[in-house]
């Protein structure tokens, strides 16, 4: 009797428990099936069209992103000149005639204008007198949204080997969406193979970078120091040893590379391009605080109720409220700091340029002297090469020192010293008695 009732009780309990478990499992499965059958909710604003991978025509992307695209269109006409830059295509040679002496014998002494906004990239590269019939296709590497597609289709080696004029027939779009964005996901990506290779050489993979890092790294698709390697004119960033100017010069020295030979000093010269990325990331104060290029040059703006990153890439000095005001409360004060930093850099750069010209003249005079000490003359030429590349690393960089004030002044100080050493070595090579008696 007792045994019977216990076993009956036990079996009832098992039945009840099993029922609960089955009901719970069924409802769980039901919920999962219900959730799975729900339409996938669109995130944010649904896109109007699908963009083909590597689509070179930015106006097609613009259908989905009217705000970004309409601000991007402003880069065609945003030609305001700031104190030391901006986007007005004024002649740098007229603004500072010393450049004609410093770049003598090189195309930069003939035509060297301030660059305009992104949408003018093709007009500008086709108008410059620096381009001639021998110019390789490599020069288009940073000028067009056709590039990612062409690189995939014909390969980088072929792209760079093709003459500028021939390659130009396939290039119809200026810089655009496809240069920085992956279609549809709109993720920021590295598109320039030279950047990918340069990062690889340093053991870095951009695919592991954060969104904030990418907001600086995509600018390095173009705003960097580069050269055309070998006979194939293969686009290469000289970053193997590092991105500081000393490391870059060491790289070039090892490669025995020269851009041209200076006709007055006879030195094998290097020309710096536009090392904004290298300068900014050399531990500048804004970089160390986690600020990206886009934070200042493409500030987050509002149009009606919509908020987006302005694609009218320009000098932050033209929109200080949006660019500086996100972090700094006293805008008048910080803009005044920019002026102080840029004025200082310009003044020191004047000193450096005078020293470089003195060095060039001294070497020229020494070389024309009879019985010149050839060892000392070679040394003087080597010093001129190094000094001018260091100066140019600051001069060709588009911020008049602001991207990294301490680094700019550090480089200019060393450059001035090297230029004066070059001058001294040249005077000694010529056997100037005055110098010798003074030591």
């Amino acid at each position, binding site marked *: 009797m007792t045994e019977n009732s216990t076993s009956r009780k036990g079996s009832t309990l098992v039945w009840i428990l099993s029922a609960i478990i089955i009901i719970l499992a069924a409802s769980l499965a039901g919920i999962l099936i219900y959730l799975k059958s729900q339409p996938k909710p669109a*995130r*944010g604003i649904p896109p109007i069209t699908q963009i083909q991978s590597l689509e070179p025509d930015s106006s097609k992307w613009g259908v989905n992103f009217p705000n970004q695209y309409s601000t991007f269109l402003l880069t065609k006409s945003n030609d305001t000149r700031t104190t030391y830059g901006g986007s007005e295509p004024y002649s740098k040679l007229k603004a500072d005639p010393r450049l004609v002496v410093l770049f003598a014998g090189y195309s930069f002494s003939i035509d060297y204008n301030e660059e305009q906004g992104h949408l003018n990239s093709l007009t500008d590269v086709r108008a410059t007198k620096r381009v001639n019939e021998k110019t390789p296709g490599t020069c288009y590497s940073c000028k067009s949204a056709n590039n990612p597609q062409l690189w995939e289709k014909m390969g980088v080696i072929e792209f760079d080997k093709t003459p500028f004029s021939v390659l130009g027939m396939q290039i119809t779009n200026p810089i655009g969406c496809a240069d920085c964005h992956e279609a549809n996901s*709109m993720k920021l990506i590295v598109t320039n193979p030279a950047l990918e290779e340069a990062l690889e050489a340093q053991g870095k993979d951009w695919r592991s970078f*954060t969104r904030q890092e990418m907001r600086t790294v995509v600018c390095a698709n173009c705003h960097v120091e580069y050269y055309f390697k070998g006979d194939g004119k293969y686009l290469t960033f000289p970053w193997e040893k590092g991105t500081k100017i000393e490391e870059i010069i060491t790289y070039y020295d090892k490669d025995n590379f020269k851009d041209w030979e200076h006709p007055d000093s006879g030195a094998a010269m290097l020309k710096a391009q536009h090392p904004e990325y290298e300068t900014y990331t050399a531990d500048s104060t804004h970089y160390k605080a986690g600020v990206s290029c886009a934070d200042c040059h493409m500030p987050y703006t509002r149009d009606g109720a919509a*908020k987006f990153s302005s694609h009218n890439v320009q000098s932050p000095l033209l929109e200080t409220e949006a660019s500086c005001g996100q972090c700094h409360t006293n805008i008048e004060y910080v803009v005044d700091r920019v002026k102080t930093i840029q004025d200082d850099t310009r003044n020191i750069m004047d000193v450096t340029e005078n020293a470089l010209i003195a060095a060039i003249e001294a070497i020229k005079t020494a070389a024309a002297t009879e019985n010149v000490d050839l060892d000392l003359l070679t040394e003087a030429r080597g010093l001129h090469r190094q000094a001018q590349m260091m100066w140019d690393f600051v001069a060709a960089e588009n911020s008049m020192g602001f991207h990294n004030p301490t680094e700019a002044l550090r480089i200019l100080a060393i450059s001035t010293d090297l230029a004066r050493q070059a001058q001294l070595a040249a005077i000694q090579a010529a056997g100037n008695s005055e110098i010798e008696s003074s030591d």
Partner: protein
Amino acid sequence: MAFIAVIGVGLVASDFTAYLGNNSSTCNNCHVMDNDYEGWYHAGHKQWTTCNDCHTPHSFIPKYWVKATSGYHHVTTFLFRKIPVAIRAKESSRKVVQKNCKRCHETTIINLDRGLVYGLDDSERYCFDCHRNAAHGDRGLSILPFQHTEKNE
């Protein structure tokens, strides 16, 4: 023991553990947070604060109490489709944020409390009654058709 293991595995597998951490992308799992997330991402506070730095208390027990209660609130609102058109902070949430403003900006506030700049009545007001754009920038919509996270995914 087995029960705890099953629960533990379940929590990790369902990514529930993400909700115990401080990553701002986690708060942006829900679409309704897109605007707030993007606003914060592009504003000056991003360099120093995550969502939790302002929106949850900082001592251990109050922090997880707030996470638990607001988590419960968010889940039920979501499940029963009771999401308000305009999401506004509750009074208790506003108190949490206010405490956190003070936590970092204490030295600035010392002056205010002495009435050097503001009147005595103002000491009862919230910082963000006036400084509305401080953490999320201007009010507005993120017009992106996709979710961004701190990782470039």
